[in-house]
């Protein structure tokens, strides 16, 4: 009997796999292909392929033409060879090398990381781009989630879908927080963005779940120019989780994502990121350039936006999740752990722009540098002239492991209202030999001791993450440090 059931399941799986093949990627190969390079034609091609409405094409083209007039910024404290923008694919780039056929073909180092993170086999395969026969579990889980969200009136879909299903929302909000004129990479993203997430929380709705599990299952192939737009209507709440602790296979070196958040009156958006893109090897070869623009606006009174990020991956991380505190009494928060090892470079921080009265912001940044890496905090606190009684508290700590790495802090203050209160604290410390010995003497190895110390140091930030993710992030910090001490 059980044998029969199994056979039925097997048949079902095979059918599913076949049908997917037929309607899915088979036909994709011929059609969804754009040649290397960037031109107005390519932008048009992308928009056409996505069957976008006219307003999107215009929007993309405007961004493209503006991008042509711009120059790559040079002020950041990171070094990388010149990027040839004409030598990249901008639409459904066919992978240069065929993906691995099974896990035996995957780098054992990466597999051991999966092991340590406790990632299930199917998910490992998916992360490495191996075709999974049928992911029945995740499909059903995803469907359940979707039903639940629909009931609450929440829209959560790929942004490419939202362009068709809710063009009025996309047209109204896309680029409203990060206009294409904002910076070089935002302009590039606006012209060629591939896909990303769209979230709309209606008035008075508390999103009943972290928008994370679902996302994680569907996260693959959002591409190198990801675009995310989250709108929280009056009195609503959403917690959104981006990224994955597991390193994902990726052929694209440059990642230039844009994330925009809009919080209306009394709304709250919590946005958490765990970034673990390929950091390059021990000699600093390879690795992802992660050049991201993330910004939220507290549009209405009493609204709140909170960014939490754990950045351990990428060879270069360059991003400043920011808050524009426009509504009176609105609150902006930024909690960050940025860890760099080997030859990684990170230049990250935030901007808190106080416009409304009684606006408050809080910045907690914890940098951890090891190996030959460079880790910079760069943050702006701006109090505009009408932002009376605005308050900011910033704490920027740096922890150094070893003496070949660097930690830098660049705080910028612009205060145009004398009733503001701004506090800044900064510390730099080294990991103490005495603490390590103390932990050794209690039976804890040096590697585990460093992990304990680092997790303790980053605790204030890790505490901001949703519970499950916090545990994964702790493991991730420990793994990212392996080999950096001793």
């Amino acid at each position, binding site marked *: 009997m059980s044998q029969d059931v199994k056979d039925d399941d097997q048949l079902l799986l095979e059918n599913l796999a076949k049908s997917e093949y037929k309607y899915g990627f088979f036909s994709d190969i011929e059609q969804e292909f754009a040649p290397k390079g960037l031109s107005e034609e390519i932008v048009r091609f992308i928009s056409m392929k996505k069957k976008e409405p006219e307003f999107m094409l215009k929007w993309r083209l405007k961004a493209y033409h503006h991008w042509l007039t711009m120059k790559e910024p040079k002020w950041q404290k990171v070094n990388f060879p010149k990027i040839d923008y004409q030598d990249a694919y901008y639409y459904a780039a066919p992978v240069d090398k065929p993906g691995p056929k099974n896990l035996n073909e995957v780098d054992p180092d990466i597999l051991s990381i999966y092991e340590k993170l406790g990632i299930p086999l199917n998910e490992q395969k998916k992360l490495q781009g191996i075709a999974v026969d049928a992911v029945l579990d995740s499909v059903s889980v995803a469907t359940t989630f979707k039903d639940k969200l629909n009931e609450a009136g929440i829209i959560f879909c790929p942004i490419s879908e939202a362009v068709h299903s809710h063009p009025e929302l996309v047209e109204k909000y896309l680029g409203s927080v990060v206009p294409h004129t904002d910076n070089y990479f935002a302009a590039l993203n606006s012209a060629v963005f591939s896909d990303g997430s769209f979230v709309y929380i209606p008035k008075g709705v508390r999103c009943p779940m972290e928008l994370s599990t679902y996302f994680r299952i569907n996260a693959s192939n959002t591409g190198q120019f990801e675009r995310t737009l989250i709108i929280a209507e009056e009195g609503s709440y959403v917690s959104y989780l981006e990224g994955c602790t597991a390193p994902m296979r990726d052929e694209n070196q440059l990642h230039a994502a844009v994330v925009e958040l809009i919080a209306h009156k009394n709304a709250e958006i919590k946005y958490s990121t765990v970034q673990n893109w390929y950091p390059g090897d021990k000699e600093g070869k390879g690795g992802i350039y992660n050049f991201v623009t993330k910004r939220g606006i507290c549009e209405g009174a009493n609204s709140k936006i909170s960014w939490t990020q754990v950045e351990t991956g990428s060879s270069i991380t360059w991003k400043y999740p920011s808050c524009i505190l426009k509504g009176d009494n609105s609150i902006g928060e930024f909690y960050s752990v940025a860890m760099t090892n080997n030859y990684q470079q990170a230049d990250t921080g935030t901007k808190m722009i106080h416009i409304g009265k009684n606006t408050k912001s809080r910045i907690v940044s914890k940098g951890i540098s090891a190996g030959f890496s460079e880790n910079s905090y760069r943050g702006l606190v701006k109090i505009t002239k009408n932002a009376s009684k605005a308050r900011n508290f910033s704490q920027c700590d740096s922890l150094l492991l070893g003496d070949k790495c660097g930690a830098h802090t660049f705080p910028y203050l612009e205060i145009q209202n004398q009733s503001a209160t701004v506090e800044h604290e900064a510390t730099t410390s080294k990991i103490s030999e005495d*603490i390590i*010995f*103390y932990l*050794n003497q*209690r039976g*804890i190895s040096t590697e585990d001791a460093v992990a*304990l110390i680092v*997790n303790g*140091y980053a605790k204030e930030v890790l505490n901001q993450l949703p519970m499950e993710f916090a545990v994964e992030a702790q493991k991730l910090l420990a793994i990212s440090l392996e080999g950096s001490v001793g």
Partner: protein
Amino acid sequence: MALIEIKNLKANIYGNEILHGLNLTINPGEIHAIMGPNGSGKSTLASVLAGKEEFEVTEGTVTFEGHDLLDMSPEDRARAGVFLAFQYPVEIPGVSNANFLKTAINEIRKYRKQDPLDAMDFLQMMKERAKLVEIDSTFLSRSVNVGFSGGEKKKNEIFQMAMLEPKFAVLDETDSGLDIDAMKVVANGVNKLKTDDNAFLIITHYQRLLDYIIPDYVHVLSEGRIIKSGGKELAYELEERGYDWVKAEAIA
């Protein structure tokens, strides 16, 4: 068999020899006290036994339960059952006592091929042992030693000792800076933890701790050697007469 046997131990730090050939044998069930003036090498002995890297052993052996202790890493010594109550316990921000101890206990259990303690058993054990050293259980969720008074830090050392159940514990001037009440708590902890199978080495400047922890043997350490050994009455004699007469006796 002796629990720990130290033979002709010579050790230096940054080229300065501090221990000049120290001999000491401790059997299970014994409490030994080492007294001596400042700079005699008491804390060096503690550090060498625990395996602190800065100290270089140039001669001699230390055998712990038949194994070469000096050949083991600091963490393996701890896992094998050597415990040092530090003279200056460190503060570890963001790491709770509970998390720290759970990590430590499970490392030790792993070494002894035991299953890890589950959270409930661990919590139970922690509450029990906290009572033993009269510490408030709220302190278990606080970061290790952060914001603790001197007395609390020392009590925490004894608490950790109670949790880790070492076979051989070295108390490095645990009594220094303690008021009489805190000292009683520390002594009480040691007395309750003492069994026929474990042993303690109490390093102290003053006799007063030995009013509460009765040692089987008292040794006088001077210039990196044990120059006199005796029973508990030796401690009183030292308190009364100082160290000079012992030194004079040793030279003669």
